[in-house]
């Protein structure tokens, strides 16, 4: 019997597959507790989705709110370095075998490793949807567009149509404009926007038209995309004849949801379940993220699609569970470690977009205020709806106007205001309220700190018939002071002439430029964006 000549198998206390938000977080927590940990990632750079996410994160301070994704990624890398975590890049785990053995390809060699425990943190990949011409070059995933722009510095196209109004579709549409691409339209077959209203609002006010209850009929072009036709659909998603609209575009981005990349777990023989609420094929895991195979854990999007913030917390929990499984910490130490993290995770799983509320028809905010229907159906808050929200108050002089109308777990604006004009309160899903009795110092910190770019500083009457509106501006080129142009309303339509009176940048604003424009005072509560004259 020929025995293969292979010396000892390299063995680790803990092997983590995937150096994204959850994988790195798991490795950090385990290493901090003495566990010999190695992380493999097939990409050239660690951080997974974090390094493609250039927007400021939601949540509270402990969730690293108002910090941009790629900055969090860097912080995580530094933390992993300090904790002595070994991260091996360009290392593709090609198989997870029995006995918790993996085979990893690095360069032109394959290596066998075994882990006393293994955490799979391989994240998710994009869903696809078919339409006539969907295989044409130029049809790409929204994540692909993010990768090209934010990782490789390449514009995915010149003029883009976005299909999908979940957070990815909204955020990537905004990022396309930041990269210098034009977004022709944002389309979704669903009747209501799937992602955060604030993400939709910051896209709508730049003039991008939203077409809900519409989807793609056909991508045009013989060799690559040269145009696209959309049409309205009825509530059975069938096209309504005569509603066709054509756009000349060279790129179509598809943002129709994510699926867990749970193949490694399925391959190893874990019990799986097909759970549409979690995005598809997920391992059946206990409260500790342990799969049906003892010592084999899953953390992050691979066990259920959520945001990177929850993926990081799930990762930390998995790292602690693994440390307990391996006997490096006691059960009580584990439980103590868990409490804080459970609370943080639970804090994120609240509000209108919480997993438990998916599919529910929410009519009123937690405060009992009717939600903005217009925001859901057309992507912007109606002029007749804006006044009923606690963030919108009126007084003389500059004051914050917070157009944040949905209960999402997020409170950086509260901490940003040194004058305490802004109050969210203990429950971080509460809508931010402005106390008009307190004086605003016009420091701009609230505008820059809002992850959803939903805060403006408004002086409704400067005394000379004009008003000023200060808005967050994250595009290039930044107009100079004195530039004349048009002010756009929340719906992206031109409302009046405008002139840039002040441009403020500061490291504290973290790349959000504050643009102050002067408009006729009757438009103070309408003008929300600025477009320079051509």
């Amino acid at each position, binding site marked *: 019997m*020929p025995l293969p000549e292979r010396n000892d198998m390299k063995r680790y206390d803990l092997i983590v597959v995937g150096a994204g938000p959850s994988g790195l977080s798991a490795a950090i927590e385990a290493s901090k507790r003495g566990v010999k940990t190695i992380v493999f990632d097939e990409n050239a750079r660690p951080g997974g989705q974090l390094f493609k996410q250039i927007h400021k994160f939601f949540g509270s301070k402990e969730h690293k709110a108002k910090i941009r994704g790629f900055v969090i990624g860097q912080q995580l890398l530094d933390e992993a370095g300090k904790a002595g975590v070994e991260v091996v890049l360009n290392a593709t785990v090609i198989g997870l*075998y*029995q006995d918790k*053995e993996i085979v990893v390809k690095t360069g032109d060699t394959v290596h066998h490793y075994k882990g006393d425990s293994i955490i799979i943190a391989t994240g998710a990949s994009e869903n696809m949807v078919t339409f006539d011409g969907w295989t044409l070059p130029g049809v790409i995933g929204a994540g692909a567009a993010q990768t090209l722009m934010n990782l490789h510095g390449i514009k995915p196209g010149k003029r883009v149509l976005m299909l999908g109004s979940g957070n990815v579709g909204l955020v990537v549409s905004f990022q396309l404009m930041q990269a210098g691409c034009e977004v022709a339209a944002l389309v979704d077959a669903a009747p209501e926007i799937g992602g955060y209203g604030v993400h939709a609002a910051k896209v709508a006010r730049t003039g991008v038209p939203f077409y809900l209850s519409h989807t793609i009929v056909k991508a045009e072009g013989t060799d690559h995309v040269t145009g696209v036709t959309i049409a309205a659909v009825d509530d059975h998603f069938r096209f309504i004849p005569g509603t066709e609209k054509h756009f000349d575009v060279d790129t179509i981005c598809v943002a129709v949801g994510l699926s867990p990349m749970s193949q490694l777990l399925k*391959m*190893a*023989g874990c019990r799986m379940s097909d759970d549409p609420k979690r995005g598809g094929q997920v391992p059946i895991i206990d409260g500790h993220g342990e799969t049906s195979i003892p010592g084999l854990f899953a953390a992050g999007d691979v066990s259920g699609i959520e945001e990177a913030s929850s993926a990081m917390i799930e990762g930390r929990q998995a790292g602690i569970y693994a440390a307990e499984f391996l006997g490096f910490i006691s059960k009580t130490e584990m439980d103590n470690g868990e409490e804080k993290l459970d609370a943080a995770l639970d804090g994120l799983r609240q509000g209108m977009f919480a997993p438990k509320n998916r599919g529910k028809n929410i009519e009123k905010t937690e405060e009992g205020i009717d939600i903005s229907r217009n925001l859901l159906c057309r992507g912007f808050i109606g002029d007749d709806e804006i006044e009923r929200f606690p963030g919108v108050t009126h007084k003389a002089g500059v004051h914050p106007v917070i157009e944040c109308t949905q209960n999402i777990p997020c409170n950086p604006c509260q901490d940003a205001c040194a004058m305490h004009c802004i109050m969210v309160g203990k429950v971080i899903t509460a809508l931010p309220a402005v106390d008009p009795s307190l004086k605003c110092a016009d420091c701009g910190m609230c505008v820059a700190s809002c992850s959803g770019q939903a805060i403006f500083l408004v002086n409704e009457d400067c005394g000379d018939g004009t008003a000023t509106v200060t808005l967050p501006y994250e595009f290039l080129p930044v107009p100079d002071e004195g530039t004349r142009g048009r002010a756009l309303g929340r719906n992206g339509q031109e409302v009046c002439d405008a002139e840039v009176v002040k441009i403020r940048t500061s490291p504290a604003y973290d790349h959000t430029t504050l643009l102050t424009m002067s408009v006729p005072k009757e438009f103070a509560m309408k003008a929300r964006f600025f477009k320079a004259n051509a």
Partner: protein
Amino acid sequence: MISYKADVIIIGGGIIGCATAYYLAKNNISVTVLEASDYIGNGGSSRNGGGVRQSGRDPRELPLVMYGIRNLWPHLSEEIGVDTEYHQDGNLRLGKNVHHREILQGLTDRANKVGLDVRMIDGDEVRKIIPYLSDEVTVASWCPTDGHANPLTTTLGYYKTARKLGARFYTGVKVMELRKVKGELRRVLTDDGSVFEADQIMVAAGYESRKLLGSVGIDVPMTRSLLEALVTEAEPHMFDQMLGTADADFYGHQTKHGSFVFGGSSGFEGFNKDNGTPMTSSITAPAICRGIMKYFPDLADAKIVRTWAGWSDKSADGVPVLGRVEEVPGLIVACAFTGHGFGIAPAIGDQMAKLIMSGTTDIDISALHYDRFKAKI
């Protein structure tokens, strides 16, 4: 408890069961096939290397496969409405040294004795047939009438057409026990309490057949071993022959799709474990790759896209157990194909259907009778 009635019940939805069902249904015999897994053809039928060969076979089963290659394989695609991708472009069994030459010579002489046209050729002749073979190949046995086909489409083609002709198939139905009624085998009891009844019952459930046959006092001495295989990306066309080696380091062919399917061994086939479903071990695929590259340097850059494993029902003497079981009237057995049941399957289906319908076969299968296993002295 539901009860079902049919002329014939076949236990095992692999290519043997589906082919037999087809040849019965073609003659208006009502047949029911019971498959334990959720998928038709999920055992060896969809995991083998696709060889349709005569060379290298034991003389006791050679007449059957020669019959199949002469009468059934050539027009099988039209008959079962799929592209079986059957190629009859010969089989090369390669060797590099004197030891290999002896093995190949032994196989060649044995086959010539029963009239199979197979002969020894030297390295240069081999490279005339397949120029990509390494110069280290110095000898091969060459059988021009061997070939290969696609086991997936062939198995499912038999299933599709038998089903269209009225054969009934049930998947996810595990047979627990066979039961005689007044001395004749009539009943099949399943895991959910159903009872199937028929005048004749064929057991073609691979290794699982042993436990089933035990319930009527019949034992087929066989073990199982976990064989592994791999498939590459599609490549430009290189060769049409079926390949094997004297050392059995690998076997396989290039498919019509352009991908190469190769099986091989780590030497631990008899000892591999699985976790409930056949699963590859971490050392075999690298071993198969090393085996292939020794003969095909040009395939070094070919990318592997998938590997898989499958249980082979290994009989004590290397050939299947086939035919009637006189002690249990109404029982037909067709199992223990020892990893080479694909190429022979059409002939088995055709002859077992004939046996079921008429009690006789065209080809003499007495040498494969169930009670041939005697002590060595």
